[in-house]
């Protein structure tokens, strides 16, 4: 059993300072424009203290909880990929010379401490490690290799959460340096803290703390288990790849298309989406250029442009591309499902399209069944 400590709110402040002293830029949840975003924080005062997020399909509201919880919410529209692959990253610079052009090394990236990372966030970082690791991308690796992660276990999932379906939460098991669990019960307010790495242990050792009591540990674990039982949504992953890839011509995709606006919100808020585009920014006098990486989305019309026009001019096939990539093809490409069950795409879709519901609908309307009313291929085989 990992060593578990208990710290108070002052301890959390000390943790943030300790990370800053070690040269990390500490980024974590903070309120911006009535939404919880990720930005630089210097103390617990910057956190959304006493706030809860009310999330449902197409809805996000912040409201007062009536207590002093530091982590009484789940996830907002941003994820930590804002920092690992920031849009607008200059990844190559060139200067014109007499003989042609030469390369200028890009700047060193900052060292980030991801503070308040939910288990789904930690899982998303691991998913992206797989993606960017397989192409050995220096932009991602440069920021990720130097990062420090302070995870926070979830005890109150939102109705849009379904991390339990994908085994990515509501508690973290690995992939973090320090994991916190907030316990708030009447006047008792403390945080269980566990180290997940050597550096995490070092940092914790520098804080004022005491050893956790057995009943505190059990109580915290029970809160996380209860959170798993109270998930708002569920995604059936059994045979998911075969169902989706076997239904590429299902007319239901065009039904979804009638609602989908191709607004790209889902891809922007998703913590695992990685599609990017490259832009060249030439100086006015034409002597210097920067090649910049931006975020892109498979929902845009010219995403799939080849000579002659886009390969996917219709919205149905574009939604199909996103869903089948995230839940099916990703498995062939990277050996795991690309979704971590954070529910952001459900909350931030302006028309409330729900990935768990659409996957279930395709399963329900599986064209591989022999005829309506007869058992599905799977049922018949059993």
């Amino acid at each position, binding site marked *: 059993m990992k060593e578990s400590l208990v710290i108070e709110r002052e301890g959390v402040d000390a943790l943030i300072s300790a990370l800053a002293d070690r040269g990390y830029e500490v980024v974590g949840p903070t309120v911006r424009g009535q939404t919880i975003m990720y930005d630089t924080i210097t103390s617990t005062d910057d956190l959304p203290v006493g706030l809860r997020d009310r999330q449902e399909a197409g809805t996000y509201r912040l409201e007062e909880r009536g207590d002093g919880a530091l982590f009484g919410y789940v996830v907002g529209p941003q994820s930590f990929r804002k920092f690992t692959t920031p849009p607008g990253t200059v*990844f*190559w610079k*060139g200067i*014109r010379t007499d*003989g*042609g*052009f*030469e*390369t200028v090394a890009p700047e060193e990236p900052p060292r980030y401490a991801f503070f308040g990372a939910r288990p789904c966030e930690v899982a998303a970082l691991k998913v992206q*490690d797989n993606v*960017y*690791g*397989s*192409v*050995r*991308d*220096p932009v*991602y*690796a*440069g920021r*990720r*290799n*130097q990062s*420090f992660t302070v995870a926070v276990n979830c005890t109150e999932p939102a109705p849009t959460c379904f991390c339990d379906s994908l085994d990515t939460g509501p508690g973290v098991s*690995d*992939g973090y*340096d320090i994991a916190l669990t907030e316990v708030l019960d009447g006047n008792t307010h403390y945080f269980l803290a566990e180290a*997940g*790495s050597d*550096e995490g242990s070092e940092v914790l050792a520098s804080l004022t703390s005491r050893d956790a009591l057995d009943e505190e540990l059990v109580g915290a674990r029970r809160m996380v288990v209860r959170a798993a039982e109270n998930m708002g949504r569920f995604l059936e992953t059994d045979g998911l790849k075969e169902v989706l*890839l076997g239904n*590429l*011509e299902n007319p239901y995709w065009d039904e979804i298309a009638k609602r989908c606006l191709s607004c790209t919100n889902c891809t922007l808020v998703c913590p695992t989406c*990685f*599609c*990017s*585009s*490259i832009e*060249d920014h*030439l100086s006015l006098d*034409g002597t210097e*250029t920067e*090649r910049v990486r931006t975020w*892109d989305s*498979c929902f845009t019309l010219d*995403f*799939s*442009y*080849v*000579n002659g026009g886009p*390969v*996917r*001019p*219709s919205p149905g*096939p574009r939604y199909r*591309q996103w869903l089948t*990539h995230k839940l099916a*093809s990703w498995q*062939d*490409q990277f050996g795991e499902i690309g979704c971590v069950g954070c529910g952001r795409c459900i909350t931030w879709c302006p028309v409330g399209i729900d990935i768990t519901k659409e996957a279930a609908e395709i399963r329900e309307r599986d064209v591989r069944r022999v005829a309506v009313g007869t058992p599905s291929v799977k049922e018949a085989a059993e």
Partner: protein
Amino acid sequence: MSTQLSVKADAHVMSPAPCRILSVEQELQDTYTLEVEPPGDDWSFLPGQYTMLYAFGIGEVPISISGDPEDSTKIVQTIRAVGAVTDALVGLRPGDYVGVRGPFGTAWDTKAAEGRDVLIVAGGVGLAPLRPVVFDVLNHRERYENVTLMYGARSPSDLLFASQIHEWRGRFDLEVLITVDQADDSWRGPVGVVTSLVGRSSFDGDTAIAFVCGPEVMMRFTIQALERGGLTDDRLYVSMERNMKCGVGLCGHCQLGKFFLCKDGPVMTCAQMAGSCWIREV
């Protein structure tokens, strides 16, 4: 932290290497061939591969390598001018510099074709990524049985590498069949769709290998004709095209089902493509 991801050390994969242009030849009205000095002495490529060519400050595009794989003294690239970047590239002059990344992608599997009849079927500018495999096969002619080049273009004035084709026609160890979609009376050769050439060549349908490249529609129908001739989908190779930006499987644009065409392709067998890849708007 606990993760330690490795980084691509090769500079020419993520950042373009400046390479000097040796020559620019106009092939057709909108098609040019550039010969570029390679970035290093160890330059080599496999037939079917492409590079990302960079016009300083303007942008980058994937361009097929159309030269002889045994000649490592130059990179031969055939470009069709269809937009801002390609317009800029074809406007360059000998002595100018172009950025080169690569080579990237999968190759035409000549090893699998050894001891068999080889059918090389090209449509339009699709002859460019196939020319290296014609060179390769002719360079090692004894390894193969009957070799046939079938080429279809829009009209006689759109025949790419016309003088090269003329040279190849003179060989006794290569069958060259040409057709055009439309012509006036001065053209004395075949007129009709390239699929019609399949029926005019004799090959062993049970063992032959085909390398097909051209517009997707042309490839679809050519494959049908070749299948009628006995070829099975593990012996049919195609070069698929999608929007390619990074060349390394990072940006996601070139995905076709589970494949990143920039690195799992562009050359794929029909067996790999089985089913899902020919679906509407996939």
